[in-house]
């Protein structure tokens, strides 16, 4: 009978997630959200704005009908809330969204405890309202300079995205 080799166990280490992986994971999540959250609103949105040839015509149409821009705004808020729910619930419970799961990334709390507010705050950039829209600039700039690989809202919420590195032998 052949004996199995007693090889050293594979070693695991967690480190800052690479920006490329984070970007791809985010795109995957957006594609899923497009199907789950945005698709139900598509029919209503397409009825709201008739088909126009150019962007300018669509823009003028919305400008001349303030009720339409108000409705679009309301729908954007609703979609943002559902999107934040997607990220918050999955990251709080599993530490991963679908995109992060596929790319083997994980969200952890840098404090001992995990609180709900942490996972909501880290997703606030998804709200299309001033001043949250400032995060669209602030988050990537902060990320670029942060040694921990955190966005501004991640730093605020005391969370970070990590990826697990495994090396060694596997049987």
């Amino acid at each position, binding site marked *: 009978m052949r004996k199995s080799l007693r090889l050293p166990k594979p070693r695991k280490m967690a480190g800052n997630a690479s920006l490329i992986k984070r970007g791809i994971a985010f795109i995957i999540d957006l594609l899923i959200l497009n199907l789950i*959250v945005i698709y*139900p609103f598509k029919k209503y949105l397409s009825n709201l704005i008739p088909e126009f040839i150019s962007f300018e015509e669509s823009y003028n149409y919305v400008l001349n009908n303030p*009720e339409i821009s108000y409705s679009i705004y*309301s729908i954007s808020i609703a979609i943002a809330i559902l999107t934040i729910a997607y990220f918050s619930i999955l990251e709080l419970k599993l530490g991963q969204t679908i995109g992060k799961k596929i790319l083997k990334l994980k969200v952890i709390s840098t404090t001992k405890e995990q609180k709900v507010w942490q996972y909501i705050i880290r997703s606030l950039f998804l709200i299309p309202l001033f001043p949250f829209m400032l995060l669209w600039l602030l988050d990537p700039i902060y990320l670029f300079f942060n040694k921990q690989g955190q966005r501004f809202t991640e730093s605020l919420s005391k969370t970070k995205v990590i990826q697990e590195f495994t090396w060694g032998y596997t049987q």
Partner: protein
Amino acid sequence: MKEKTQKNKDQSWKFIFKTLIMLFILSWILAGILPALFYESSEIGNIAVIPIKGVITSESGSTLGQSNVAATELIKLIKKADESPGIQAILFDINSPGGSAVASSNIAEAIKKVNKTTISVITEVGASGAYWAATATDKIFANKMSITGSIGVIGSYLEFANFLQNYNITYQRLTAGKYKDLGSPLKELEYDEKLILQSIMDKIHNYFIEDVALNRNLSKEKVEELANGLFYLGEDAKEYGLIDFIGSKEDAVTYIEKELNITAKLAEYKKEKTFIEILSQAISEKFFYVGKGISEGFLSKEKLQILT
């Protein structure tokens, strides 16, 4: 160990699946609710259609279960349509016997201030105060059998003075000011009081006549001839210059399209009823019909017969 890892994996995918289903359902619910809450799709278009249906009063309410046209609410809709950049014309859909002189005059003034084309269409009835408001528009359409005109003022009331006397009920008059209880149904209308009330109504009538003459570009004398309180069918009203065209709402829309060189898209402008208003109207309607039913029961002789 491997089995435990696999079990955790399965559970995490199950959780993800449940979360996605929940979000999907929530999205569908919100996509159904939001349009009704925030946006009235019927208010998008280039011709605002504002209904004037029912008795015209200054404030909202109902009369015998029928809702009134509140001048305050109507004027808000008129301003809203006037300020809406997408609206190029306002069409007033009228089916009203008139109402308060003040309210009707206020509506007419508000229509005159509009900087867009205004057209009124009289369907069944557009008389008295409703006709006053219609004269403020650029053109008036009516069916040949529509009831319009009735350029007059009414202030009649039931007097119960003799009725009270028959039941030995006395009206104790306590006033400071000779005419403080002028028009009270509990006492006889004195001759001088009647003259006073009549002169007030004549003044209001004069304002009505002057406004119609101005709005319809007719001489005051001509309007005075027609302003005997009589109502006119649409056909006759056109002959007298009280309306412009015999036609329907569709004819009015076609007219606007030709005048403004546009393709019409009608936008319904109406006051949204609050839940309390809907409930209150429903309750008052029910009680009205209950009362009507009971009174019919008493009046109907057949029901009093004893059947053998």
